[in-house]
C-alpha cells in the first residue's frame, strides 16, 4: 500500500468517526428537543409542578436550578480564583504543590453521585443543614471546584510571562501585577470557563438528590426576606432542581402526563445548557475584543 492511499484511508476513517460523533450528538439533541419542545409553553414554565394530576409545570424547579447555580458560583468562584492564582503565580514546584495538583485531579474525576453522598453525610447529617439550597450548593461547590480551579489556572497560564516582566520592570509588586495586569488580561478566558462550568452545574442531578433534596415546596415570589420559609431566597429550604425533577419523574412519577413533563423539562434543561455553552464562547470573544481593540 502506498503512502497516498494510506493517507486517504486514514482521512476517510477519521471523517467517518467525526461524522458519527456529530450524528450521535445531533440525534440526541434532536430527539430531546423534538419530544420536548411541543410541550413547552409559558404556562409550563410558570406554573408549579403537580404530583398527581396532569398539567403541572416546572416553575419552582427552574427557579431552584438558577438560584442554586448562583449560590454555587458565589461560593466556588472566589475559592477557585484564589486557588488558581496561587497555583499559577505563586506556587513553587515542590511536593506540597504536587500533592495539591494531584488532589485536584482526583477530585475532578470523582463521580458526582459520590460527591452527593459525601455532601449528604457531612453537610446534611453531620452539620445538620438538612436538605437545603445551602447543602446542595456546598455539594455542587465540591463538584465544581476542581475543574473551575484548573480552568482559572489554565487561563492565567495562557498570559505570557512578558506581561509579568513588564509589571516587575515598572517596579510593581507581584501582587499588583497579578491583580491589575494578569487577571484582567485573563478575564475573557476565565469568564468562558466560569460559564461553561455553570452549564455543567446547571445540569447536575446526582450530587443534589441527597443534598438539595427531592421536593420543591411552594415559593412565594412576593416574599424576598431570605429568613422566611416560603421566600425564594431562603437558603435552608429543600430545593428540587430541574435535573433532579426529571430524574424523579422518570423513576417514580405518577402524574398522568409524566412523560410529557419529563420531555418538556429535559428540553428546557438542554436549551439552558446549550445557551451556557454558546454564550461562553460569545462572551469570552466579546470581552477579549473589548480589551484588545479600539474603545
Amino acid at each position, binding site marked *: 500500500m502506498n503512502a497516498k492511499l494510506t493517507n486517504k484511508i486514514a482521512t476517510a476513517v477519521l471523517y467517518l468517526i467525526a461524522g458519527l460523533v456529530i450524528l450521535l450528538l445531533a440525534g440526541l439533541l434532536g430527539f430531546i428537543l423534538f419530544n420536548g419542545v411541543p410541550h413547552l409553553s409559558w404556562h409550563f414554565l410558570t406554573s408549579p409542578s403537580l404530583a398527581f394530576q396532569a398539567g403541572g409545570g416546572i416553575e419552582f424547579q427552574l427557579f431552584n436550578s438558577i438560584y442554586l447555580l448562583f449560590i454555587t458560583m458565589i461560593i466556588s468562584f472566589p475559592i477557585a480564583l484564589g486557588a488558581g492564582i496561587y497555583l499559577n503565580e505563586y506556587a513553587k514546584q515542590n511536593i506540597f504543590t504536587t500533592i495539591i495538583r494531584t488532589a485536584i485531579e482526583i477530585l475532578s474525576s470523582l463521580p458526582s453521585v459520590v460527591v452527593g453522598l459525601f455532601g449528604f453525610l457531612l453537610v446534611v447529617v453531620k452539620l445538620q443543614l438538612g436538605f437545603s439550597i445551602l447543602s446542595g450548593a456546598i455539594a455542587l461547590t465540591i463538584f465544581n471546584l476542581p475543574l473551575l480551579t484548573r480552568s482559572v489556572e489554565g487561563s492565567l497560564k495562557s498570559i505570557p510571562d512578558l*506581561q509579568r516582566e*513588564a509589571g516587575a*520592570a515598572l517596579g*510593581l509588586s507581584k501582587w499588583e501585577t497579578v491583580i491589575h495586569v494578569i487577571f484582567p488580561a485573563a478575564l475573557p478566558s476565565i469568564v468562558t470557563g466560569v460559564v461553561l462550568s455553570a452549564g455543567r452545574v446547571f445540569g447536575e442531578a446526582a450530587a443534589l438528590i441527597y443534598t438539595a433534596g427531592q421536593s420543591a415546596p411552594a415559593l412565594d415570589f412576593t416574599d424576598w426576606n431570605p429568613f422566611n420559609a416560603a421566600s425564594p431566597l431562603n437558603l435552608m429550604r429543600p430545593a428540587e432542581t430541574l435535573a433532579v425533577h426529571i430524574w424523579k419523574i422518570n423513576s417514580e412519577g405518577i402524574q398522568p402526563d409524566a412523560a410529557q413533563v419529563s420531555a418538556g423539562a429535559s428540553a428546557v434543561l438542554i436549551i439552558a445548557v446549550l445557551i451556557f455553552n454558546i454564550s461562553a464562547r460569545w462572551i469570552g470573544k466579546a470581552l477579549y475584543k473589548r480589551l484588545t481593540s*479600539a*474603545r
Partner: protein
Amino acid sequence: MLENEALNTDNAPLRNIYRFGENAEIALSTHDLHVFYGDNEALSEGDLEFERYKITSLIGASGSGKSTFLRSLNRMNDNVATVKGQIMYRGIDINSKEVDVYEMRRHIGMVFQRPNPFAKSIKDNITFALKQRGMRDKNKLEEIVETSLKQAALWDQVKDDLGKSALALSGGQQQRLVIARAIAMKPDILLLDEPASALDPISTSQIEDTLLELKEKYTIVIVTHNMQQAARISDYTAFFHMGKAIEYDETRKIFTRPKVKLTNDYISGNFG
C-alpha cells in the same frame, strides 16, 4: 577599515576593559559579577562601568551572557538566578538587604525584546504604574502621558486615540509605547534587551532615533546583536563571549581597532 597592525594575535591580551577617568560620572557599575542558573555559571567576571547620559551597547554571540548580565542590573533574574559580586548604584549595592527592589526598579527601568504592552488603553499603559504609586492628579498624569509619548516619538501617531487598546498598535508602535511607559517612571537608567530585534527596519530606525534623543536625560544600556546598530547609536561597547566581558571600550575603537582577537573575529563576522 580595520587597522590590523594594532592587533597582535600572539601577544593580544585576553581581556581589555576600559576604565573611566576620575571625572567621569558613573551611573552604574558592576564588580566581579558572577551569575549562576543552578550550578551553571552563565556569567563570570562582569566588571563594567556605565557612564551617565551615554549609550552603552552590549554585543556578543547569542548565549554569551548579555541578557543574563543586563537582567541582573535591575534584578529581573531574582527568582531564577544567583548573583554574586557587586552592582553599585548611587553608592549602594542593589543586591544588599536594605534596597527595596520595587523602588530600585523605578530608578533602573527595562525594555524587553518583544513588545509587552498591557492589555489596557494606550493611556492606561503609561499611567497605571504611576497610579499604583499613588499619583492621583489628573492633570499631572495627562502631562506625563504627553511628555513620555513625545519622548518616545509616538505622540503624533496616537494623540487622538489615547483610549485605544495598546494591543491594536503595530509592533514598532507598541515597542515605543513600552519605552514611553518605562520613561514615565522617570528612571535614571534604561536597560534595553534587543529592543528592535523583532521589528522591521523602519521601526528599528525610529527606535534608534528615540534612544539618541533619550540619551540627553537617561543613561542607556542596550543589548543588541546588530553590530551596525551598536556602531550607530552607542558611545561605548562591551563585547561578551562565553559569559565574560572580553573587551570594553569606546564604540569607535571597538569597531575600528579592537585590542582582543576574539572581538576582532566577532565584529568581522567570523563567528556569532
